[in-house]
């Protein structure tokens, strides 16, 4: 492990930013946001950034390709820019886990090369959650907020930051920072972890359990009567999906610029009334069905297709953003109330 004094953290960040774009959480007018590092910026103390790190790898909109039509010839222009290396500092355990969930979607065959490209160029420095919030329930999905994954894991102690290289990429980067770090810090890391564990035990949502859900539970929940009351207030907006670190649905849109066509990929939301609309119409015509889709996907379909891994990381963003305060915790509790097995 390597460590650096709290007061030296900006030297360290400066060092990282010499070789790659560095993004750190910075307090903005309306909450913390990953911001490109520049001297003078200060790290946010907020637990979570408003948006997850998903945006870096799977942006809300991206221009995939352009077409130029002249007469009967269609020219295809791949205007993908060469990705630069970039480093994200301060990702939380939940966000880091979300990358694993996205990887399973985008990196399995056929590989999404846009995503893969960004993944290959990105290094994630995670940060243990010193102060989890009441909306946190990552432990439900087996995530340890005191020991996040990531290329490098960081623990913030009272006087020092401690770093632990995890992946090859991470270790390499950490090595490059030897000049601004020193060996040690294991003790600090332990203390931080213990402190975090005590707090995790006090969280109001610590008892939310996902074990009733998972692989092959489609039949059990699909026709549950509870969906009606759960979904009745849903507005059908896309807030939950857009703040979610694991939602990965997108749509492809062509935009006619008058001089050609630009093809965009943009996030879609299963909550939208025209989500996956086909020539035969909308497969999920009511909000109940759309609402059910989102939660069934996170809690049943995804695990079914991905070795039992849940499609939710318990980050709690949807809990604090939903305009009508409906969320996955309420869904899990309500559906879980029913007769088990």
């Amino acid at each position, binding site marked *: 492990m390597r460590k650096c004094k709290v007061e030296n953290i900006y030297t360290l960040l400066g060092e990282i930013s010499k070789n790659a774009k560095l993004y750190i959480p910075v307090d903005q007018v309306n909450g913390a946001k990953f911001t490109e590092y520049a001297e003078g910026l200060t790290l946010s103390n907020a637990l979570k950034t408003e948006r997850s790190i998903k945006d870096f790898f799977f942006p809300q909109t991206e221009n995939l390709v352009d077409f130029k039509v002249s007469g009967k010839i269609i020219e295809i222009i791949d205007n993908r820019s060469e990705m630069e290396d970039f480093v994200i500092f301060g990702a939380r355990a939940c966000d880091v886990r979300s990358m694993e969930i996205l990887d399973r979607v985008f990196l399995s065959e056929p590989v999404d090369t846009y995503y893969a490209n960004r993944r290959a160029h990105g290094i994630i420095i995670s940060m243990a959650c010193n102060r989890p919030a009441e909306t946190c329930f990552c432990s439900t999905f087996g995530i340890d907020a005191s020991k996040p994954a990531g290329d490098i894991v960081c623990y913030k102690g009272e006087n020092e930051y401690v770093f632990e290289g995890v992946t090859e990429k991470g270790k390499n980067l950490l090595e490059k920072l030897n000049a601004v770090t020193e060996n040690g810090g294991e003790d600090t890391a332990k203390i931080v972890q213990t402190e975090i564990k005590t707090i995790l035990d006090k969280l109001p949502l610590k008892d939310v359990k996902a074990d009733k859900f998972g692989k092959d539970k489609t039949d059990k929940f699909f026709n549950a009567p509870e969906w009606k009351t759960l979904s009745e207030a849903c507005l059908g907006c896309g807030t939950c999906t857009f703040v979610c670190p694991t939602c990965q649905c997108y749509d492809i849109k062509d*935009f006619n*610029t*008058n*001089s050609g066509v630009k093809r965009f990929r943009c996030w879609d939301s299963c909550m939208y009334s025209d989500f996956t609309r086909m020539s035969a119409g909308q497969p999920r015509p009511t909000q109940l069905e759309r609402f059910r889709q989102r939660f069934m996907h996170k809690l049943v379909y995804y695990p079914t297709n991905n070795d039992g891994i849940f499609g939710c990381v318990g980050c709690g963003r949807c809990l604090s953003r939903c305009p009508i305060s409906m969320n996955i915790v309420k869904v899990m509790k309500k559906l879980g109330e029913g007769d088990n097995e």
Partner: protein
Amino acid sequence: MQVNEFKPKIVAFCCNWCSYAGADLAGSNRLSYPADVKIIRVPCSCRVNPMFILRAFQRGADGVIICGCHPGDCHYTSGNYYTRRRMALLFSMLDYLGIEKDRMRLEWVSAAEGAKFATTMNEFTEKIISLGENKRLEDLRCKK
């Protein structure tokens, strides 16, 4: 002629009964106005949806002008009264968003006012040239 002379794109929505006829009269009387102005014929100025105006700016227009019958003269009695309210609010909103307020204009031009049509277009084009390219309501995708 200068090489880099700014040639603005101006969309003029003209109602069929008054302003389009006014434009025809300007033509018949050989009253010249800049070729930058291109006219779209609509039955009445009240057919002009704010979306059309924004669309024009998106697609690269530097100015949009709507011409209709004088209040009280609408071929459809009241169409231009609605236009007047809609555009008053829309223009005010665009101004509020910091868009140059002189990029959009509403002018009443009757079928008899060929000269007014030409003068209006001359003045408007001049104004748009002085404002320069539309940057605040542009869609970069549509720029060449």
